[in-house]
């Protein structure tokens, strides 16, 4: 279990770095809209989805029907409905921890879970590495956003550009996936082309859901070619 914790801690450092500007900015935004650190902490703990939390701040002033709030929330984070698919069978045996992993499942956790190569340990260690990855990301997010609400306005350090840490983490994970791929690398190429085309058509605010739907469709269209190099189910 300690091994799994150290493993998750090391892997999650880039996420901690990328959360510094975002978490603090969120805490400051909440405070300037009249909500103190308790509200910030509650949002980060209960919602635990960065972009939706930023959107929710614009709802707090009122004037938007709760039906609209529901629809906007459903659409903004709709990409999450795909995230569980690779883990359905793996997490089946995790009991109550499965519920925690589903709740604590932002983009950042998905990326670490995908890069989870902790298989030199036991099944138990593997479970704890998933749990610690999700838990550490949750702690970073709650603590940094609360810190932002408490002392954010005192920070003078220019953090512009530091959020690239998350982009860099995704690039590194993708390169590792491409190197480890036993089968085809086509899924990454399909997703890249689909993203660029959808960015051009739908713009930056609405591209991700159409892009993922087209990607899923194309993954089935090219299934014969993708599967040829040997399918991986684990």
């Amino acid at each position, binding site marked *: 279990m300690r091994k799994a914790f150290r493993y998750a801690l090391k892997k999650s450092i880039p996420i901690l770095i990328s959360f510094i500007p975002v978490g603090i900015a969120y805490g400051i935004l909440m405070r300037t809209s*009249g*909500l103190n650190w308790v509200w910030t902490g509650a*949002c980060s703990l209960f*919602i*635990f989805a960065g972009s*939706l939390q930023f959107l*929710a701040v614009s709802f707090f002033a*009122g004037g938007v029907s*709760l039906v609209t*709030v*529901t629809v906007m*929330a*459903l659409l903004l*984070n*709709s990409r*999450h*409905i*795909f995230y*569980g*698919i*690779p883990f*359905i*069978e793996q997490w089946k045996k995790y009991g109550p921890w499965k519920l925690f992993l*589903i*709740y604590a*499942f932002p983009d950042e956790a*998905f*990326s670490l879970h995908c890069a989870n190569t902790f298989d030199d340990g036991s099944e138990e260690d593997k479970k704890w590495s998933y749990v610690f990855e999700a838990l550490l990301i949750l702690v970073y997010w709650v603590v940094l956003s609360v810190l932002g609400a408490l002392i954010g306005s005192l920070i003078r350090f*220019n*953090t512009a*550009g*530091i959020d*690239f*840490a998350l*982009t*860099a983490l*995704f*690039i*590194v*994970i*993708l*390169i590792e*996936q491409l190197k480890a791929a036993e*089968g085809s690398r086509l*899924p*990454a*190429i399909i*997703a890249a082309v689909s*993203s660029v085309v959808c960015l051009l058509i739908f713009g*930056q605010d609405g*591209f*991700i859901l159409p*892009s993922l739907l087209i*990607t*899923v469709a194309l*993954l089935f269209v090219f299934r014969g070619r993708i*599967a040829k190099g040997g*399918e*991986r*189910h684990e």
Partner: protein
Amino acid sequence: MNKLYVIAVIAICAAVTLFERAVPFLIFRGGRVPEPVRYLGGVLPMAIISTLIFYCLRGVSFSSAAAWAPQIISVALTAGLHLWKRSTMLSIAGGTLCCMVLTQFVFAAA
């Protein structure tokens, strides 16, 4: 500000997010996962991480050098460093520092 309304918004956002994250587990709760979904589970991680890179870069535009150069140069540096040394910390630290320097000093808004 109506605190009751704020609580309602937080509750809705939390419930919707939890629901979306649970969808695949709710659909395939019972028995075996069907074969096409198993296939998807094998190939989606690579496809989604690839999509997330573009999601992070969605603000990039070609209207001015400052709107694309810091990110695109840093992407190239991160990938290059990683292909060369294959050290996660080096690649991420190098790419992030590069983006900070380019954003704050080289392509800083006047």
